[in-house]
């Protein structure tokens, strides 16, 4: 199609041979992107003028955050613990449930087309729902705020770990599995001894990685009333108490950094 509108360039070489060089699509793509950017800028009211005139407001807040309110730690710690509990419990249960879900969704283990395509759709639908929206819905359904947060994290973990896991299962070497089936093992036994050892390190490391991300997500869930440190973020911003906000951010960065270091250590060991 493209080649018909913009005919390829013909070059005659010294020995009389004709070579065709296809026109590059880059200008067309650039044009489309430029048009999209122009209309997007219109829709969002983008203006450099506002940025240059008022960006100092942003840095005043940052400066206030850089003078953290150390006395606030005692108020932060319990909520931080709630955040950690929510993300840990949600990730563990989610990762455990993701295993059977992924097995049922992988087309080389379950030969039932309908079942595995249904599960795959469910997993990708869950993944597209922003975690905050799930948490918001869960706060209407559950009594305790922390439970709502845990549920939101649980659902996200299933979808994330589940997707990566069924992709891993579908790419596994099926030779050992068939060999074990031919020696008279049941499919479940063959899965346990042939496929499970192949996917186990990847599964554990994905779950750890997901847990790292979940701590970050859990930090904002409190904003919609789902428990954890997000409550405090909401409050301190409401009161414009930016030095306390700075303290919260410092605690959060420390926690996330520690968890990332520990999890990276174990992930390196696994692979």
């Amino acid at each position, binding site marked *: 199609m493209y080649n018909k509108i913009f005919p390829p360039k013909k070059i005659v070489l010294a020995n009389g041979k004709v070579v065709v060089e296809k026109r590059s699509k880059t200008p067309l793509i650039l044009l489309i992107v430029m048009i999209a950017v122009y209309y997007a800028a219109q*829709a969002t009211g983008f203006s450099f003028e506002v*940025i240059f005139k008022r960006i100092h407001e942003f840095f005043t807040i940052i400066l206030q955050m850089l003078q953290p309110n150390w006395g606030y730690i005692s108020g932060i710690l319990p909520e931080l613990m709630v955040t950690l509990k*929510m993300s840990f*419990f949600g990730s*563990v249960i989610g990762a455990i449930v993701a295993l059977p879900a992924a097995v049922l969704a992988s087309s080389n283990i379950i030969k039932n087309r309908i079942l595995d395509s249904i599960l795959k759709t469910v997993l990708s639908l869950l993944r597209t729902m922003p975690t905050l*929206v799930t948490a918001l*819905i869960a706060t209407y359904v559950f009594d305790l705020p922390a*439970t709502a947060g845990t549920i939101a994290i649980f659902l996200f973990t299933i979808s994330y770990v589940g997707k990566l896991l069924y992709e891993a299962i579908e790419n596994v070497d099926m030779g050992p599995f068939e060999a074990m089936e031919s020696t008279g093992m049941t499919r479940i036994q063959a899965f346990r001894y042939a496929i499970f050892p192949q996917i186990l390190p990847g599964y554990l490391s994905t779950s750890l990685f997901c847990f790292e991300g979940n701590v970050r997500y859990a930090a904002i869930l409190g904003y919609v009333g789902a*428990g954890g440190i997000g409550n405090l973020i909401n409050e301190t911003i409401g009161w414009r108490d930016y030095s306390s906000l700075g303290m919260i951010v410092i605690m959060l960065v420390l926690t996330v950094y520690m968890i990332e270091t520990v999890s990276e250590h174990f992930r390196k060991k696994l692979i």
Partner: protein
Amino acid sequence: MTTVEKQLFAAPRHYRYFLTILAIVCLLIAWSVTEVSFELDQNGMKIASNIVGGLLHPDLEFLFSLTTNGVLYLLWETLAIALLGTLVGAVLAVPLAFLAASNIVPKPAAWLTRLLLIFIRTIPALVYGLMFIRVTGPGPFAGVLTIGITSIGMLAKLYVDAIEELDVKVLESMTSIGCTTFEKIRFGIIPQLLSIFLSVMIYRFDMNMREASILGLVGAGGIGAPLIFAMQGYKWEQVGSILIGLVILILIIELLSNKIRMKLVNG
């Protein structure tokens, strides 16, 4: 005992190591379970069934209306926020990435930049949103800046990986045939980095769609604000139509982004 069995038993066992880790994990689970109780709100089940009802019977007029209050316009606004935000982030991330690459700047400087990037990455998007509202006033523009700054962390991290894997031999051979610095950058460095940078940007755009859809919660534009208002007003049909629109848009973008990235990486 056969040789096979001997080999099997000779393999190193780390029972104690595994047991310790298992015990720690169990302790952590026991500790974390204290916060959770599956007590439903007294209206919980009713609300859950209302939500499902809303999803099954979405407000079709709201979903397909072309006015600035309809779902389609809100989706376009969300898309615009994600697009511009990704561009802002991608531009800002380039200098930071070069400053954080240990093969370009001295080690301490690279380490400091990395620390800065960790800070930028960990501050939740909603906090940035609230800060930028002070700058630009509520509206989608605050969303663009928020998305821009939250993207920097991940974009710069992935850029750094690409920069650190630069093939320097190409540059050496270009020096040996007498290329100028500009030519070296144009023909030696940019072709190596551009496709990776683009593919990282498209991936981040895909993620930013999700981020942009929640920014409305703090008043930074996009589809989040109507969503939370509809929920607080218990208008589940509208919630249903917003969620359906959002999920479909995100799925389409994910598909497209996967296809384009495949093409970019495989040439």
